[in-house]
């Protein structure tokens, strides 16, 4: 009996040790007593060299934090937590984190002028559902964020904006002093007169489609400017101009523009409000409505000026099937091929913006086109210079001097 009492604990101990060895071999997660957590794994080495500074070129709501990855990053670390406090002694709260292998974080929740203290916690294997083996870096601080008065990342944009603006304004005011400015022929714009004349002869309508975007798009503004000129020509030749629009604000602006144009040529009574009417905001509903109008009313002329998306080909092909002469202009590169294929004339990109100046022939507007062209020439020169510099620095010219 005495021997049994002595041997029994040894047997239990041996069994326990064997089970533990087996568990380690099978990689079974250690069961933890909630009262006493037995940590069977080493915490990862703490990250070093924590540094926090104000994010440059912002409003002061952001702090850049970086640290050296833990030496155990590839093996034991699962992720890093970023903690922040208003004082070096805490309490610290978690403001974010990164996965292993990433040693930087941007805290976008800071207030400018306030002192903050940071520390990084490298988390390892989980102990329970909510606790991890972990180690902490030293606290860094105080770090203070502030807003900058100039975004230096946009200095090149500012430079080119000033150069281009100066060029445009210079030529606008130079044009005021007189002298004829050359502008190349744009067939699409020249054809507008002819197209409206065709509609007059045939006794049919002119449809003007100002695109699908709202008044906050510069293409729509350019389109409305052209509409004013087109309305004047239509009013002079007593041709019915119909303008179906997709946006309510465009409705208001287009209606006022057309009404003013009719008044300017002395035909205010010829204008009817229903000439400019709203259809729908929906893209394909708009296309379907215009297609229906075109098929029923067989207009002689279709003019598409503004921003278009997938409905461009649907509109243009239906107009083509109706036998209308079609002039299109858009600054949407994806839709240009469709208009080129289906329309008689197409204004490509900046030609849309030049149309208003081209039609009115006002010196100030033509001067702005000249300024734009000078700006483009400077762009081109800088692109060519950049290519040359890139080639010269990248290509090894030693082969020219090598003697075999």
């Amino acid at each position, binding site marked *: 009996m005495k021997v049994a009492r002595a041997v029994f604990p040894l047997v239990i101990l041996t069994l326990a040790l064997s089970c533990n060895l087996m568990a380690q071999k099978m990689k079974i997660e250690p069961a933890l007593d909630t009262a006493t957590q037995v940590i069977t794994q080493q915490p990862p080495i703490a990250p070093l060299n924590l540094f926090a500074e104000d994010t440059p070129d912002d409003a002061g709501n952001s702090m850049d934090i970086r640290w050296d990855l833990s030496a155990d990053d590839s093996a034991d670390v699962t992720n890093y937590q970023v903690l922040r406090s208003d004082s070096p002694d805490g309490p610290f709260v978690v403001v974010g984190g990164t996965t292993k292998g990433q040693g930087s974080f941007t805290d976008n929740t800071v207030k400018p002028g306030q002192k903050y203290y940071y520390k990084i916690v490298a988390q390892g294997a989980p102990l329970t559902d909510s606790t991890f083996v972990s180690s902490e870096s030293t606290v860094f601080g105080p770090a203070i964020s502030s*807003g900058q008065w100039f975004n230096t990342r946009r200095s090149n944009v500012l430079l080119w904006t000033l150069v281009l603006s100066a060029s445009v304004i210079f030529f606008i005011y130079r044009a005021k002093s007189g002298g004829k400015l050359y502008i190349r022929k744009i067939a699409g714009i020249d054809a507008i007169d002819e197209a409206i004349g065709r509609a007059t002869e045939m006794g049919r309508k002119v449809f003007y489609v100002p695109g699908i975007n709202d008044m906050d798009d510069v293409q729509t503004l350019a389109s409305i400017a052209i509409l004013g000129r087109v309305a004047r020509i239509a009013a002079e030749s007593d041709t019915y101009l119909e303008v179906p629009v997709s946006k*309510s604000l465009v409705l208001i602006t287009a209606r006022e523009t057309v009404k003013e144009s009719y008044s300017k040529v002395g035909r205010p009574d010829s204008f009817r409000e229903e000439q400019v009417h709203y259809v729908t905001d929906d893209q394909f509903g708009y296309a379907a409505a215009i297609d229906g109008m075109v098929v029923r009313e067989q207009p002689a002329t279709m003019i598409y000026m503004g921003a278009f998306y997938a409905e461009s*080909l649907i509109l243009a092909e239906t107009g083509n099937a109706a036998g209308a002469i079609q002039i299109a202009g858009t600054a949407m590169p994806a839709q240009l091929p469709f208009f080129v294929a289906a329309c008689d004339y197409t204004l490509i990109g900046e030609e849309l913006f030049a149309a208003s100046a081209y039609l009115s022939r006002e010196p100030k507007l033509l001067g702005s086109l000249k300024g734009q062209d000078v700006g483009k020439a400077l762009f081109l020169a800088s692109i060519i210079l950049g290519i040359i510099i890139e080639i010269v620095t990248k290509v090894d010219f030693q082969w020219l001097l090598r003697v075999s």
Partner: protein
Amino acid sequence: MRREIPLIITFIAGLVFVVQYFIPHPPFDAFEQVFTNWFAIVQAFAIWLGALSLMKFSMLKIRRKQKDWFMSVIIIVGFVVMVAYGAYDGFAGMHASPTYSFRDAGTHFDWLYQNIYTPLTSTMFALLAFFVASASYRAFRARNLQATLLLIAGILVMIGRVPIGDWLTSFMPAHYQASNLATWIMNFPNAAGQRAIMIGIALGTVSTSLRIILGIERSHLEG
């Protein structure tokens, strides 16, 4: 003053937008969001003007019994039905427990949206397949050198974008197979052309915006 006030407003708004792009310091950082919110609010109210214009135009057509006036009846019926069911589901949802939106699955509005609106828009979009074919048949003719280049590039991209292209050119080295040629055309000549057009558009946008901000371009205000 009728013309001056819009010009002054345009100038101030344009200047503020340009300045805030370069100055991140408060209060400039919030201007873009503030103005965008204001625009969204104005836009939302303006929708009523558009809807009323649509109803007026449709009723005029019905009253005058113009050609195909029945289409205007369909517009009015469609408009009234969607608004009525949207309003009904919206109010019912507000008083239900738990609350739901008129757009949630299972409402009348959602049924109309999924079973009428969605098939209609998909059908209109699908028309593009047919129109692309008829436009290509008409436009891709080798009338001159540029048109011939366009034709060849178009055919290569079309055939390279589907597996048949690689199957037909499987005997050629990898670089010259249809899909790689199509990718090359898209990544180099096409991308270069797109960038050139986009640079031109950007310059045109700056010039037009300057003209509008400085009040030199006034056609949108006075015809």
